[in-house]
């Protein structure tokens, strides 16, 4: 299991990546990340929502209220052009970090 502090740093990239496919609401964002990481990345509300609101402040995302599948009000988030633009440099940054870790700490893929 990945420690909370480590996961926090990955959350921005994870959120932007799952939203690349289309708008999702908060629960769906968390669930997709969990599914796609085979359960390794799980975010609590305390980790997810303050970050979503911050990313919205930076105009990376736009939160919009609508009706969910059960007819209740749900806020869904969609990626804005500024957020989409952030994805490429962020991915490159993480790739550099993994490469550096591989060299220094002999971290390899499982």
């Amino acid at each position: 299991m990945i420690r909370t502090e480590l996961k926090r740093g990955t959350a921005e990239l994870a959120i932007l990546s799952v939203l690349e496919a289309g708008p999702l609401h908060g629960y769906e964002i968390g669930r997709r990340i969990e599914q796609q990481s085979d359960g390794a990345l799980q975010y609590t509300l305390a980790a997810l929502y303050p970050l979503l609101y911050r990313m919205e402040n930076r105009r990376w995302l736009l939160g919009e209220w609508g009706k969910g599948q059960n007819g209740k009000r749900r806020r869904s988030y969609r990626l804005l052009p500024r957020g989409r633009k952030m994805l490429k440099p962020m991915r490159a940054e993480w790739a550099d970090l993994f490469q550096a870790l591989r060299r220094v700490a002999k971290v390899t893929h499982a």
Partner: protein
Amino acid sequence: MPDWRAHVRDHLGSLRHVRAEEEEVVCELAGHLEECYAALRAKGMPEEEAFSETCARAGNWEELRSGIVSAIEEGTMNDRVKQIWVPGLVTLLSSYVVLTLFQRIGVRPMVLHPGEPRGVVLYLPWLFLLPLIGAVGAYLSRRALADGWRVYLAASLPALALGAFFLLLFPLAFALDRQVPLHIKGTALVAMTVGWVALPGIALCLGVALQGLSKRRTASR
């Protein structure tokens, strides 16, 4: 199904300073927990276990509360800067630069009741340019998604700044200079306010209205 809204409200407590957003935050978090609980139940997890698993996924409530408050405050502050202070500073600086330029090149003001200390001083070319400056301020403010009073406040900041300056300066002048009769001081204050606050303010607001009108026309095409 547990009452997740009440659960969130109990655990989250009051979102001080950001009460306007509190209801939406509670609704959003409750919706998240509700879906999480429903998904666990759909997998066949017993009610009690699903409830405690959902609660565990909420994480630390104090951390959540402070994280949300600081994120919302940060957003509000960013919005205020982009919607009011940046456009306000642009209108303030450009209106004073233009006025100084006119004075430097020798544009003479029109003075109503010349020769009296109570005359209204009007720099007409400056007044005619103010709607344009107001429109620029309104454009910048609206571009940052501001509307209503925020746009007017940003665009009319030069007039408001002068108004505030007069409000501070005149009581002091009244107190210090006791030789000039009070009625002359009073009418001088009115004359200054008309020439430097009211008319420039109206000109700037006219610019805001015209910019809004042109924006609506462009949007409807």
